[in-house]
């Protein structure tokens, strides 16, 4: 296409010039024709490709409900870290746009040290959604942080098992996820 444009720009000079030598004019005309052919070929290619590409793009949008562009669970619901600072522990997730986690399906268990105890996760208020099968539920978009505390007579948690489950807004849900994560100690 780039090579076609200069030829096309020169065309009026070649055809409209009154006092030009004929061989040079013919050469310019031939060049203009070649440019025109290249342009037409390029256009034909674009015309051929466009309907398919546009249709594919259209479907890939609805394909989020048809499956084409869905993220894997670990990309959709990224468990970022479990960080301890003093007597508080914070677990954080990054939830990709177009995806959400269910509050009621978030769980945390202590794996180490043995015998350590942990309270239930404290979660922010989520967006309430209603469904004929599942009733009311709270969901989270974007970033999410859960705060956890443990009894004074228990050792601080070092390793956790974190459970969560979520869906894509496009109408696909992911199986419950379970991940083991080490607790990072932050300076106080």
């Amino acid at each position, binding site marked *: 296409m780039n090579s076609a444009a200069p030829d096309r720009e020169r065309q009026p000079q070649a055809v409209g010039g009154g006092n030009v030598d004929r061989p040079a004019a013919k050469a310019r005309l031939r060049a203009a024709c070649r440019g025109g*052919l290249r342009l*037409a*070929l390029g256009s*034909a*290619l*674009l*015309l*051929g*490709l*466009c*309907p*398919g*590409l546009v*249709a*594919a793009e259209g*479907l*890939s949008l609805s*394909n*989020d*409900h*048809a*499956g*084409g562009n*869905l*993220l*894997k*669970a670990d990309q959709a619901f990224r468990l970022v870290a479990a960080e301890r600072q003093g007597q508080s522990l914070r677990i954080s997730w990054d939830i990709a746009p177009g995806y959400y986690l269910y509050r009621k*399906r978030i769980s945390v268990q202590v794996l180490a040290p043995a015998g350590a105890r942990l309270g239930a996760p404290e979660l922010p208020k989520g967006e309430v959604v209603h*469904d004929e*099968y*599942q009733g009311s539920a709270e969901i989270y978009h974007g970033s999410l942080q859960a705060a956890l505390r443990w009894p004074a007579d228990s050792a601080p948690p070092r390793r956790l098992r974190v459970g969560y*489950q979520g*869906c*894509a807004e*496009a*109408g*696909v*849900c*992911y*199986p*419950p996820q379970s991940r083991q994560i080490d607790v990072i100690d932050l300076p106080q």
Partner: protein
Amino acid sequence: MRARSIILIAAAGLIAGAAGYGFYRYQHGGAAVAGETLPAGLEMSGLDGKPHRFEEWRGKLLLVNFWATWCTPCLHEIPQLVKMQKQYAARGLQIVGPAVDDPDAVRSMQGPLGINYPVLTGSPDSMIDIMEKLGNGPGGLPFSILVSADGQILARQSGEFTPAELTQLVEAHLPASAAP
């Protein structure tokens, strides 16, 4: 020279169009996959614990619909699958519903949902592995595949079918001779 150029341009346009359409079909979740055979030996359990393989339903148009009780879109889709099974069974449609779920949870929903086709279960890891083998990399539900009587994968779908999509797909692959 001019005629040759016109033919060349027309051919290029056709090739490009075909490539574009091919890309469109590739992107579509329900795209037919020419020559792709349902992998053999994928084993799951019935709710009674007995082992089952998809080969049991060879000879029928098989719609495999993976679902779970925790999957709201799956629960929305099941009533139309129940209706389809009732309507098209005589013409050779067989729906099978592998559940990526705990068998007790599945049993508790089977009655209320009125599921009139076989439900299969397996460990979460094995079910995810089976779905991956069937082309569901992300592992989301609902996920369906349509398999011909001779074991060819005809279509895949992630997410719910609309009633119109499902009817059109099933009608397109069932013999037209017998009335539903």
